[in-house]
């Protein structure tokens, strides 16, 4: 466990910041939005990121990875959060790759992981079915038919679903609708017959889709892990995703916070810099305190993925909750403290505000994780 970054991680942070601020600033997201970009991210940028090893940062060296662990990953995600960089980093290189690491057969790993690492292959997790995160409430069915499974159901809020090459589909192969037993995970090509993908336009100008599965035939070899035992993969997979998105949310929070501090030092009203007003100072100082707490929680949660997976469920829920609350507070205050200009589209603060709301819903909102944490604490 380490609550400070090592030399290597600090170097990575500098590199990431330099690269992202010059190649993928918030302005790039605005252009994707204004051009109604069909993919929702720049393929060329993603290739550059992959060339620097970012798509393989958590992968073992045996599969073409850098093996930098989650703390290293967290550094990259945080920096890409600062610039609101749209890329398949989270959906594919973190969630997709983790699914294969946790549940894939050796053949899957050998063929797919190096492809992810090189940036040629992207994955997406098709999990949610209702408008709230309820990972065991799965109605999508997987019926066994000889050597195959037949998938039927409808998924929503599939991040990068419309652009991913392959989908990881969570389906029910047995059990009642809210059981964690009886789930199975399948690897399905997005272009398979019976798969219909409808991109949704969300407030954050990023990518999510609703996907329909109608009599989709999946060979049994594309099952991840054992049939009916999908929860054993899904739960740690979601926890990794929660910690990773929390790292990205730390980036949104820091950037929105820093930009607001800078504004308080330049905006004058009543003949004084508004940053000299105690009504604003105390709110900023309180946020600084929460930022410090979140920094510790995040580092501990990231290093738990690498070093102490038994602590991960609690730490992942802690990190997601704290970062949900932080990013909501910081982005709301950023808009408020910027005043009138804060609600204009011209100012980039609005992009942080909107992206934060989407991130808060990813893999469990605040209520979901408080309930889970309370249950883990025994009450």
């Amino acid at each position, binding site marked *: 466990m380490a609550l400070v970054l090592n030399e290597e991680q600090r170097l990575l942070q500098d590199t990431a910041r330099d690269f992202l601020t010059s190649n993928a600033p918030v302005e790039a997201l605005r252009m994707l939005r204004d051009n109604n970009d069909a993919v929702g991210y720049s393929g060329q940028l993603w290739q550059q990121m992959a060339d620097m090893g970012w798509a393989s940062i958590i992968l073992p060296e045996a599969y073409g990875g850098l093996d930098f662990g989650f703390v290293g990953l967290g550094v990259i995600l945080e920096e890409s959060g600062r610039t609101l960089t749209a890329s398949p980093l989270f959906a594919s290189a973190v969630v997709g790759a983790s699914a294969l690491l946790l549940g894939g057969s050796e053949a899957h790993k050998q063929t797919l992981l190096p492809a992810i690492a090189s940036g040629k292959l992207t994955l997406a997790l098709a999990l949610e079915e209702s408008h709230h995160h309820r990972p065991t409430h799965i109605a999508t069915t997987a019926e066994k038919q000889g050597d195959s499974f037949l998938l039927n159901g409808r998924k929503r809020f599939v991040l990068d679903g419309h652009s991913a090459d392959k989908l990881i589909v969570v389906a029910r192969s047995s059990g009642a609708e809210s059981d964690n037993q009886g789930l199975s995970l399948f690897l399905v090509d997005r272009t398979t017959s019976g798969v219909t993908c409808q991109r949704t336009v969300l407030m954050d100008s990023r990518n999510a889709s609703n996907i329909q599965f109608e009599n989709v035939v999946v060979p049994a070899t594309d099952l991840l892990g054992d049939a009916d035992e999908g929860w054993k993969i899904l739960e740690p997979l979601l926890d990794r995703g929660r910690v990773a998105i929390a790292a990205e949310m730390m980036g949104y929070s820091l950037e929105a916070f820093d930009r607001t501090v800078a504004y*308080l*030092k330049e905006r004058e009203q009543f003949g004084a810099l508004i940053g000299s007003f105690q009504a604003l100072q105390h709110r900023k*100082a309180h946020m600084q*305190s929460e930022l410090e707490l979140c920094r510790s929680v995040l580092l501990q949660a990231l290093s738990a993925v690498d070093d102490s997976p038994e602590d991960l469920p609690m730490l992942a829920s802690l990190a997601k909750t704290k970062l949900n609350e932080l990013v909501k507070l910081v982005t709301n205050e950023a808009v408020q403290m910027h005043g009138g200009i804060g609600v204009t589209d011209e100012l980039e603060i609005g992009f942080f505000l909107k992206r934060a709301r989407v991130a808060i819903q990813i893999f469990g909102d605040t209520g979901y994780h408080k309930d889970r944490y309370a*249950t883990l604490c025994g*009450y």
Partner: protein
Amino acid sequence: MEDLEQFRLDVREWLEANCPESQRQPMTPEEQYWGGRRGEFPSEDARRWFERMRDKGWTAPEWPTEYGGGGLTALEGRVLKEEMKRIHARTPLYGIGIWMLGPAVLEYGNKEQKEQHIRAIVNGETRWAQGYSEPGAGSDLASLQCKAEDKGDHFLVNGSKIWTTAADRCDWIFCLVRTNPNVKKQEGISFLLIDMDDPGVSTTPIALISGESEFCQTFFDDVKVPKENLVAELNKGWSVAKALLVHERKLMAEMGSDSPRHILVPNMAAHEYLEFENGKIVDARLRSDLVDYDMQMQAVALTHFRTFEEKSAGIRSAAPMVMKYVGTEAEKTKSELLLAIMGSRGLGWEGDEFNAQEIDTVRLWAMSKAMTIAGGSSEIQLNLIAKNVLELPQS
């Protein structure tokens, strides 16, 4: 690192052999030993335990051995703390001398002052009080008026100090005094050591909402203080005070995790006082408040670890600057939460209808209100973060 592991084994063995069984139990505030001329040991075992620790210099483990300290490095000091905690060994000697005056004299005092005061603190011979606040100088500490006039071979001190902890049982008091009224307020303050037995020093306890009177007001009426009792240069006392305040805030931030009382933890209190159904607290609001508190405390604890790791790695961050604020606010939240969980059983003040734990919890709730006021209020902490971390313009 290997040496540190060996040190840990040695410490463990020594503690095992030397810490009496009775000194490995949780203690009440009455069982703490604070030393000084009026200090009394609560038991023979407490005396034995204190003397053994004193002889190792482990009443002040990280102070230099030439003045009686233990001479341990920060890492060794931490190991000792951990090993003591492991067997629940009691702290053998408490005191503002150990926490605050000692570090100040070691950093700013001259050789004679170190020789006179440091060993006496390590040996538990003198108990110190702190004289900072005044009736008219609370959050605005630098406006203090208690004055020390230069009378050639001595200072003549007149004024009063408030919130002087347990001053009625202390031997010495360190004071911030006004030595120059004609300059910017921070630049006319000096740091003076005063023997409380000197003629003209008197002390009155102050009754608090918690029912306790641990704080006092101390009066100085034409008190003659020898010149050699000035620590650091004349009119440079504010720098010493600021350094000590950082120290005090760190202690206050950690106080919750090192409370000597046997008090309730909210999670355990919930199991004792609340209705459960299917493993969940029925009262959704209290369940939600409890999880907020538990999460906040875990975050605070992790941040304490982080500040330690950063210090060891020589990395500076803003984390230490926020700990007093978040730590004491969390303590206050905890007390409110405990009362809410206990319902009308969290209202008892005295008598046999309530158990000791319940009454202690109520008293601590009242005491917790002082945590966010003493040592620089939460509002002052936020001012400091705004100024020193965020570097926001000052009005």
